[in-house]
């Protein structure tokens, strides 16, 4: 989950740079992202679509040599990202486009049910990884929070999350146990189950419902994606903004239009 988070934030940084016209920065972000895509292809076989999840676990194992190689590659990604961070956070032309743009106060963020980095940039300490699902308590996790509430703060939150994710992946690589990759799951199911997960864009809500009698079929499956939750906040930030700030405000929620209302 954290490797896709690094990938998603690097992709978004590239799009943000493209949004304010900084094409070469966009290309550099995506060049760094290529290393992450190589890791995905080496471990799962696909660059964006992984096809490794199965009921009970995952389908493909990763040997120790590959894990060490991944750790070294991520060090390289960290060094490259540090060069990009300097530009995003300190460059005057970038700050002119991001600082003070799209301000969302903490109260508004709570009222509009914002999730993910959009909420954390307005000072709300909300991250599903704090609730204890997964092994985040073992690999050490602190949410990245800013208080400025503008596009610059959201950019900073996502960049901090890249570094935090890389550190967590490296800790996980050190601590990963050498056990089965999947547990056998037998029988049919009934009833309903819901789960919240912290995707790169925010909280995603998964709901699955079986029939009353155990069968192998599901009655209903629904995924509520984080982009859907952040759209009201985007509308609020668009009110009264300059025309040139519209791409900034739209991009700042990290919109995945295809995910919206799946």
């Amino acid at each position, binding site marked *: 989950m954290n490797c896709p988070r690094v990938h998603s934030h690097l992709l978004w940084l590239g799009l943000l740079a493209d949004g304010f016209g900084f094409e070469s920065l966009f290309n550099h972000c995506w060049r760094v992202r290529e290393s992450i895509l190589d890791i995905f292809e*080496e*471990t799962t*076989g*696909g660059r964006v679509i992984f*096809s490794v999840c199965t009921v009970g676990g995952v389908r493909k194992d990763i040997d120790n040599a590959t894990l060490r190689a991944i750790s070294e590659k991520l060090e390289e990604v960290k060094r490259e990202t540090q060069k990009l961070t300097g530009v995003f956070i300190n460059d005057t032309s970038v700050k002119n486009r991001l600082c003070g743009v799209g301000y969302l106060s903490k109260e508004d963020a709570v009222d509009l049910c914002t999730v993910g980095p959009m909420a954390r940039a307005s000072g709300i300490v909300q991250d599903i990884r704090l609730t204890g699902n997964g092994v985040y308590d073992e690999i050490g996790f602190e949410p990245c929070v800013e208080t400025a509430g503008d596009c610059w703060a959201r950019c900073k939150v996502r960049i901090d999350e890249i570094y935090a994710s890389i550190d967590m992946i490296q800790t996980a690589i050190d601590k990963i146990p050498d056990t089965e990759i999947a547990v056998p799951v037998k029988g049919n199911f009934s009833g309903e189950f819901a789960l919240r997960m912290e995707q790169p864009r925010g909280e995603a809500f998964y709901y699955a419902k079986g029939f009353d009698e155990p069968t192998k079929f599901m009655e209903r499956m629904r995924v509520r994606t984080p982009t859907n939750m952040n759209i009201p906040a985007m509308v609020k930030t668009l009110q009264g903004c300059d025309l040139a700030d519209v791409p900034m405000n739209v991009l700042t929620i990290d919109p995945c239009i295809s995910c919206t209302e799946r």
Partner: protein
Amino acid sequence: MGSLFKKPATLMYPVVPREWQERTRGHIDINEPECILCGMCMRKCPTNAITVDRNAHTWSIERMKCIQCGCCTYNCPKNCLTMAQTYTAPSVTKTVDTFDIPQKEKAGSSASADGKLQNNVEECIYCGLCAKNCPQEAITVDRKEKSWELDEEKCVKCGLCTEKCPKKCLEIK
């Protein structure tokens, strides 16, 4: 500034060939002599990209429908399907690749030459799991009459019944 003096990060494809990773999911290959035309791949394919024609002895795949998920490779009882690394070539038409499956020599069944399904009736408890799981509905089990019958014409020797049998009394030999 450094980018001016470093070599390009992009690959001069197609002049420089791409090096594929070992696990890259590119396209499905079939080992035709091993195929028993059981049709498990066709049943499991989520996009219905595979067509198995037992009468014509062909196995065909619509390349543009295939999503390279690998379900067919996991479910093939003979492991004759593999995931190759190179992507499907771009095309202006929807490519359908058809492979002729050589006929097996043994008479009596159009499928494998590997023998036939046999049941050790002394161990059989007539639970009917084999019949329920048979994709071809080739097995008939009657618990009251204690009878187990196999329609050899329908049996494709996929081996699902041998896996499901709780008493392990089914064998293909």
